[in-house]
């Protein structure tokens, strides 16, 4: 338990958002990664968020923030298409490209970024509140 629980809670959300952005950047980085037909395609990464139980000593009923429970992977089948000119293509000219929805990932990236921003402003507001509490009836 710390004396400023809001920081830890907002911090856990920041860590989760950062992991989410990491996963999205991996998806977007591999959007053009093609594989031969007989190999699994790049699997899209998803994070599974999960609420944390409250820390001992913190107010009852208030949780402990959020964490990344696991990383889930998308379909390894990918999208099979014909590209005979590709050096990795098999005898039928087929290759696998990842089944990553670029528009969806870009939208998720904006949500993750806004969520990060939101939790940063929670940290800032909490910091200001605590600071004002310290200055109650102070001389300076």
């Amino acid at each position: 338990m710390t004396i400023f629980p809001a920081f830890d809670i907002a911090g856990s959300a920041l860590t989760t958002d950062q992991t989410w952005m990491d996963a999205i950047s991996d998806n977007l980085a591999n959007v053009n990664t093609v594989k031969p037909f007989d190999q699994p395609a790049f699997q899209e990464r998803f994070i599974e968020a999960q609420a944390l139980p409250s820390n001992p000593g913190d107010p009852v009923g208030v949780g402990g923030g959020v964490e990344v429970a696991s990383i889930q992977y998308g379909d390894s089948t990918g999208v099979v298409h014909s590209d005979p000119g590709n050096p990795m293509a098999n005898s039928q000219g087929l290759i696998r490209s990842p089944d990553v929805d670029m528009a969806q990932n870009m939208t998720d990236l904006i949500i993750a970024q806004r969520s990060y921003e939101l939790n940063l402003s929670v940290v800032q507001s909490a910091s200001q509140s605590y600071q004002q509490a310290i200055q109650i009836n102070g001389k300076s």
Partner: protein
Amino acid sequence: MSAATTAPVSGVQQAGATAAAAPADQAGDASDSFGNVVVNALQGVQDTQNTANNLAVQAATGNLTDVHNYTIAATEASLQTELTVAVRDRAVDAFNQIMAMQV
């Protein structure tokens, strides 16, 4: 010191007694004195600052994984220091007012 000086300060001691209950007593009666409460609080501040310092070293050496972890730890350390300083200032202020009393 006369009884007049200890009476107003007993409120501070009372508050201090509950705060100092958790840490181990080292000097019997003196354990719940205001000084000990401040010392215990300072140890907490020291711990917070050590965390912030470790993260600062990680940031400098490129081992920091989450930027916000450092900034939050630094904010926490500075707030806790401010709080302890505020508590000390109030106590010293109260003491000075009593010392300035006309007898």
